[in-house]
C-alpha cells in the first residue's frame, strides 16, 4: 500500500497564519481581498523582509536587508558571499518562524542578476519549504 505523502495540511497546528496577499487580488467568491495562509504566508513574509531596504518601513529604520544596495557592487564571488550572509542574518533577525537550512545565491553574469534559492524549515513543524526569487538591479 502506497503511503500518502504528508503535507502541512495534514498536521495539527498549534497556530495558523493568515495574511493579505501582496498581489492585492480579489477573492472571486467572497469578493473580499485575497489572503494567503500558513506556509504561503511565511513565504510571502520572507520575501517581503529580504526585499525591504532599511528605512523603507515606517518608524522602523533598521528593518529589512541591504541586498538591493549590494546589487550595485561589482558582481563577484565576494559579493555573492556577502549577499548570502546578509540574507541569512536578516531572516534570522526578523522572521522567527523559520530556520534556514540551505541558501544558494547563483549569479547570472550575463543578465547581472542573482537567483536566490532558500530552503527553510518552519519551526515546530516537520516541513521544509523552498523559495526562489531573482534579485536584479532595477533598470
Amino acid at each position, binding site marked *: 500500500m502506497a503511503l500518502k505523502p504528508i503535507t502541512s495540511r495534514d498536521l495539527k497546528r498549534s497556530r495558523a497564519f493568515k*495574511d493579505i496577499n501582496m498581489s492585492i487580488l480579489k477573492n472571486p467568491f467572497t469578493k*473580499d481581498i485575497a489572503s494567503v495562509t500558513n506556509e504561503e504566508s511565511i513565504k510571502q*513574509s520572507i520575501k*517581503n*523582509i529580504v526585499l*525591504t531596504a532599511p528605512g523603507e*518601513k*515606517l*518608524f522602523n529604520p533598521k528593518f529589512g536587508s541591504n541586498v538591493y544596495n549590494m546589487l550595485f557592487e561589482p558582481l563577484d564571488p565576494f559579493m555573492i558571499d556577502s549577499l548570502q550572509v546578509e540574507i541569512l542574518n536578516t531572516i534570522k533577525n526578523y*522572521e522567527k518562524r523559520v530556520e534556514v537550512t540551505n541558501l544558494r545565491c547563483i549569479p547570472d553574469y550575463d543578465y547581472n542578476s542573482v537567483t536566490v534559492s532558500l530552503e527553510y524549515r518552519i519551526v515546530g513543524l516537520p516541513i521544509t519549504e523552498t523559495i526562489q526569487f531573482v534579485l536584479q538591479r532595477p533598470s
Partner: protein
Amino acid sequence: MLPNNLTALDFEDIKSSIKTYLRTREEFLDYDFEGSGLSYLIDVLSYNTYYSSFMANMSMNEAFLSSSTVRDNVVNIAKLLSYTPTSIKCSKACVSLKVQTQQTGESYPNNITLQKGPIATGGNRTWNALSPVTVEVDQTTGIAEFLAVTLNQGSIITFSYLVDNFAKQRYVIPAESADMETLSVTVRPNESSTIKDTYNLVSNITEVKSTNRVYFLSETEDERYEVTFGDGTIGRKLIDGEVIEFEYLVTEGSIANDTSVFTFIGKFIDSNTVNYAPSAAKLTVKEKAQFGSEAETIESVKFNAPRYYAAQNRAVTTQDYETIVKRLYSNAKTVAAYGGDELNPPIYGKVYIAIKTKTGSSLNDATKTSLKTQLRSYAMASIEPVIVDTNTLYIYPRIFASYDPSTASRDVSNITSNIQDAVNQYAQQSEINNFNNNFSLSKFQKAVTSSDPNVADTSTQISLVQYVKATGNQSNTYCVSTGSPLLDSAPNLTLTTGSGTTESENTEVDVTITTTINEACKKEPVIKSGKFRLADRPGIDQYFEDDGFGNLVIYYISGNRKVITNPKGGTVDYNSGTICFGPVNIVGSGGDVPDVNVDGEIDSPELIVGTDFNIAIQSIPSNPSIIYTPDPGSIIEIIVPTISVSPLGTNLPPTIPLNSLTPEIFEIVPPIIEIPDISNNGNLANISCFNS
C-alpha cells in the same frame, strides 16, 4: 469593537491600537510579524493617522497664545489683543564733542551744526546721529561744545511707497532688524514735492480724529513690521499719488553693547556755511554703548500680551499698574504695585509702585515725576500713584561642601563650579530677584547637594546684607528691616543690673573693662556694620554692632581693642527685624571719607551736604529656612556665594555664622547672581547724559 485608545498621538501607540482591534477579528492573523503584508498595511494606516493627528494637534496648539510656538502665530494672536511686540533696539552710546571753529571776517560763527547720519565708528560698526544737533559757539575762544551726543548703532535706511488705493497695498518695513523706535514716517503729496508731513505713532484710537496724521504699527510675517494709516474716520486717509517715506535704523542689537572706543567721522557745518573735517572735533566718551537688545522673544510676547489686554488701558488693579508701568517705562525689569493699605501703618488713597530697572540704578526724581504724570491718565480719580525705590535684601550664602576623595573622579574646582552652576539655576528657576519671591533654604541646599555626584555633605551659612542710605552731614535716624526675626545669640542671658554704668552717650569706655563688669550680659553680636565716619570723629572709621539686648553699640578699633563711643547708637527690634541706626550725623562710609585737617575737623563740610553714603549692615536671621521680602516693594538678591570644598572627614562649620560676620567685604555692593530677563529692552530715561 472600536479602537481602544483614541487619544494616542504616538506612531507606536496608534499601531498598537489597530493591532488590538485586529485581535478581535478573524480575517487576518499575521499582524504581529513585521514581515507580513498586513504589518505593512498597518504601518501605512498608522502613519496616516499619526500625520493627521499631528497636524490637528499642531493646528490647534498654534491657535492659542499659550500653546503656540511659531512666532508668526504668536504675534498674530497678540495682534488681536492689540499688543505689538517690541522690535530689536539699537545700542546707544553718549559722547561729548569739542570743535574749534574758524573765523570768517574776524568773527566766529554764531552756531555750528553736527549733521545727521554716520558720526562715529567703533567696534567695527557705524554709529549715527538720528537728527542734526546745533550748539552755540563761544565767541571768545571759537570753541563749540556738544555736551551730550547720542550715538545710535546701525545704518540709516530710507524706503518709500507710492500710495495706490486701487491696489490693496501693505506698507511693510522691508528689514528684519529695523529698530522701530527710530522709525520716522513722513508723507509727501507727490513724487516731485519736497513738502513733508510727519505722521505719529498711536496705539490708542480714542482721541484720534479724522484729520490727524497718525499711523499704526504691528508686527507681521518674519519679524517685519507693517505700518497702517487711517481710514478717514480714525486718522487721515492717504490719497493716491502720495509718497510715504520710512526712515529707520537697521541695527545689530545687543552685539554692539559695551563698545567704548569711538572714532569721529561726522560732519559739521557752521552758521557761515563753512564745513569742517572730522579731524576738527575732539570726541570724549561719556557713556559706553548700552541698551541694545534683541526683538521681543516669543515667551515675552506670550507673557505680556494677555496682561496688556487685561489692563485695558486703565489702571484699576495692582496688576494693571504693573503692566502699564512696564509699557510706559521700558527700562523696568520687574514692577511691583501695592496699595497703601498694605503698609504698616496703612496709607489710604495711594498705590505704590516699586520699579526694578534693567540697569540696576534707581530712578531719578524727573523720571518718577514723569511716570507719575503719565500714570494719572490711567489711574482712578481718587487714587494717587507713588513711585518708590526698590529695597533690596541681599542674601549672602557661604557654602561648605565635603566630598569623598575615594570616589571623586574630578578635581575640586569642578565641584566648586558645579555648585556655582546649581546656585545659578536655583536662582533662575525660583526667579528669586522678582518681587514677592521668597528664599527657601531647603530648595537652595537641595540644588547644592545634587549639583555634583561627588558632594557628600553640605552646610550653608546664611546672613543678610542691607544698605543704609545715609544723607551726608545731617543728623538722622536710619531704619532698615529684614522683615523676619533676627537671631538671639544667647537666649538664656538677660540684662542684669550693673551695666548701666557704661550707658552715658558719647562716653568712651574700653570694652574690656565693660565685659569684666558684667560678663554674664555679653552676647555675641548678630548685626554688624561696615565702616563709616561720624561728624564727631571724622578722622576715625567707626562701626556698630548690636549688644544682644536691643541696642546698637558704636565703636572704633584701636589696636586690638574695641573702643565704644556710643553704647546706644540705635535700636534693634529682634522680633520684627527692624534695625534703627541713629540719631547720627554721617560724613563718610567705606572708602568714601572726608578730608580732615590737623585739628581733626572736616576740611570742606559743605561738600558733604546732600551726598549719599551707603553703609553695609550684615545680620543673622533667626530662621534662615525661609526668608521673606520685608515689604511688597522689596526684592531678594543672592550674592555670589563663597564656596569651600573639603574632603570627607573635615568638620563642616556650624550653620549659624556667629563670629564670622564680614560686613567690610560688602562696602561696595557685591556681585549678585544675574538672572536673564525674558525681554531685555533698554531705555535712556534714567541716565542724565542721554536726557540732555
